[in-house]
């Protein structure tokens, strides 16, 4: 059964604040035209979520839904247009010193999608890892100590013999091995949270599982949390404790993985699930009329952003942007129409996740 003990209870019961929390996180980009005709692309609007210690959270949605923008906001590549990110209770916007930003970067590194362009082809594997160690690990004072640590992280991601791997150039490694080096580089910082942006989508099906298992292993052994960004729901189910579903810049559903998959509340989540090919299940018909054309979120009017594709849309969906409502145990969805689980206590109908 679903392990409900890992479901976050936000800040209420725990003496420590959550590892990372986003509140009403928003990012708009100016696009097109002249100075006066500026339009705003709403990449992310009012995203609120929590990532707890030792938790793997999957962020799923179609391309253009804002998944990667959230990762980049968390990695401080972008500054939020509005909203705040709290790391260990501290707001990032007030993190001003070079030392504190560097400490955050080493606590929250990123692993990229493309293992073929994220490693410098001109340097040996050891280069990137040793550089990270020099920058982020002042506790390692000698080259010998750093080399030993580099060997340790390479072995931790399942590459042997470490000394041999460290001497190789990226082109001498397979795609799966390169992606493991990406994780080794992140691991060298002794991270608390790894932002993994589609880490397996460029890999062959046969080796994806290995990288997913690696994430579970690093969580179990080093207590690292993960934000696992993906469009592959099946792989999200395989590794994640909780799922966030994004659509057109909004988080439209959030909850324990098994709950979201067994009882999807949002019509978009239902569409997404019906489209996943599952050779073990008979062909289901349902997604066939939907073309999968994502909306452009330029200067959007209020209302649910899924309403034009939604089979359930009613009048209110065209006027009021739905907020996340509690519809199951730890399970919320932003939909005016969705029904709560039968076993959910009737008193708890209020929006959550905005703590």
């Amino acid at each position, binding site marked *: 059964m679903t392990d409900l003990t890992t479901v976050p209870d936000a800040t209420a019961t725990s003496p420590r604040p959550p590892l990372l929390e986003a509140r009403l996180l928003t990012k708009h980009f100016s696009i097109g035209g002249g100075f006066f005709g500026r339009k705003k692309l709403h990449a992310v609007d009012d995203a609120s979520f929590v990532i707890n210690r030792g938790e793997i959270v999957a962020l799923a949605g179609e391309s253009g839904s804002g998944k990667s923008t959230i990762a980049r906001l968390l990695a401080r590549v972008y500054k939020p247009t509005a909203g705040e990110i709290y790391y260990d209770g501290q707001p990032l916007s007030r993190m001003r010193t070079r030392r504190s930003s560097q400490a955050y970067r080493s606590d929250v590194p990123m692993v990229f999608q493309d293992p073929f362009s994220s490693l410098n082809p001109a340097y040996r594997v050891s280069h990137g890892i040793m550089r990270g160690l020099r920058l982020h690990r002042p506790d390692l004072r000698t080259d010998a100590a750093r080399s030993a640590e580099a060997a340790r992280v390479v072995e931790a991601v399942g590459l042997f013999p470490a000394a041999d791997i460290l001497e190789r150039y990226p082109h001498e490694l397979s795609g799966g091995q390169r992606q493991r080096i990406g994780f080794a580089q992140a691991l060298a910082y002794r991270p608390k949270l790894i932002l993994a942006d589609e880490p397996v989508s460029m890999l*062959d099906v046969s080796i994806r599982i290995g990288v997913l298992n690696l994430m579970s292993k690093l969580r179990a052994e080093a207590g690292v949390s993960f934000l696992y960004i993906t469009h592959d729901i099946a792989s999200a189910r395989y590794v994640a404790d909780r799922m966030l579903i994004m659509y057109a810049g909004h988080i439209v559903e959030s909850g324990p993985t098994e709950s979201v998959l067994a009882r999807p509340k949002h019509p978009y989540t239902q569409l997404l699930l019906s489209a996943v*090919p599952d050779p073990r299940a008979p062909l289901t018909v349902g997604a066939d009329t939907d073309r999968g054309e994502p909306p452009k979120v330029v200067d959007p009017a209020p209302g649910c952003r899924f309403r034009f594709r939604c089979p359930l849309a009613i009048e209110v969906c065209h006027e009021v942007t739905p907020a996340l409502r509690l519809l199951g145990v730890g399970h919320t969805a932003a939909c005016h129409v969705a029904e709560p689980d039968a076993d959910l206590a009737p008193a708890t109908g209020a929006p959550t996740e905005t703590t």
Partner: protein
Amino acid sequence: MSSARILEVRDLQVTYDSARGGVRAVDGVDLNVHRGEFVGVVGESGCGKSTLLFAIAQLLSPPAAITGGSVLFSGRNLVTLNDKQLRAMRWRDYSVVMQSAMNALNPVRSIGQQFQDTLEAHRDTPVSDDRAVEVMRLVGIDPIHLKSYPHQLSGGMRQRAMIAMALLFTPDLIIMDEPTSALDVVAQRSLMVQIKELQRELGFAVIFVTHDMSLVSHFSDNLLVMYAGQVAEIGPTRQVFDSPAHPYSRGLLDAFPSIRGPRVELTGIPGSPPDLAQPPTGCRFHPRCPLVKERCLVEEPALYPVGTAYARCLWHAPHSLSLSDPIPLQIAVETA
């Protein structure tokens, strides 16, 4: 399948010339495709599936070349035809839809202009004046987009436009190289359903290459699983999925986490595909095979019938392996 055979690939071999000598990327592949059939070709990167497809379409360029075998298509051996003869057949008798429509379409010409180029190249084959409009409607794009440039269309629409172009002359065969891999899951599903519907309506055959075995599970009639340049298993899709005969097919299937079944730990397939410059002795899959026996290291398997499928695995040979066969030393140690 009782209908006519339109494509017959016999003992096809493709060799890449390399500094280390010839690398045989496709090694003795046989394949029959019937009218209106959907054949899925699956395997990991580097197993030769795209090379096979390019060889069938006669699109190989140096250092790759066909070094043996034949490709019989509507009564002619494509391997022996010259460029001019092939040009006359392309688009008209068979067409190819590439993986990345963004790269396959010319960015500085509108979709309509590119359709026009294709139509003009085959002026001897008359089609109706508004054929471009017809095919756009067929794939479900508003014909107004004939005036659009590729960058103005979404990824799904570009891929549909490519398929529309492939349908201009209603060919007998459309060869598709991972046409949905750049699309999101909902768009991917919608495109697959549409390809299947068009096929039912127009009767063309499809060879569909993908690394995602689950994608074709509900759409292909027959499935070809390639490994190391050879056919590892070929047979009716349902049979291959329900009872894979080759350990490699089983491994590929088990590499997919399910979204509905029980949540179990998976292992994928350990190791990586072999270097084809020095393929392993005996069965090419033996270094990664969980069922390997000593005989697999020395004896090269042929394709053996298993039900209505064929598998290249000694477990299905007439004098097949049995559990009493000695297990190679290194495996015995690992399982101990």
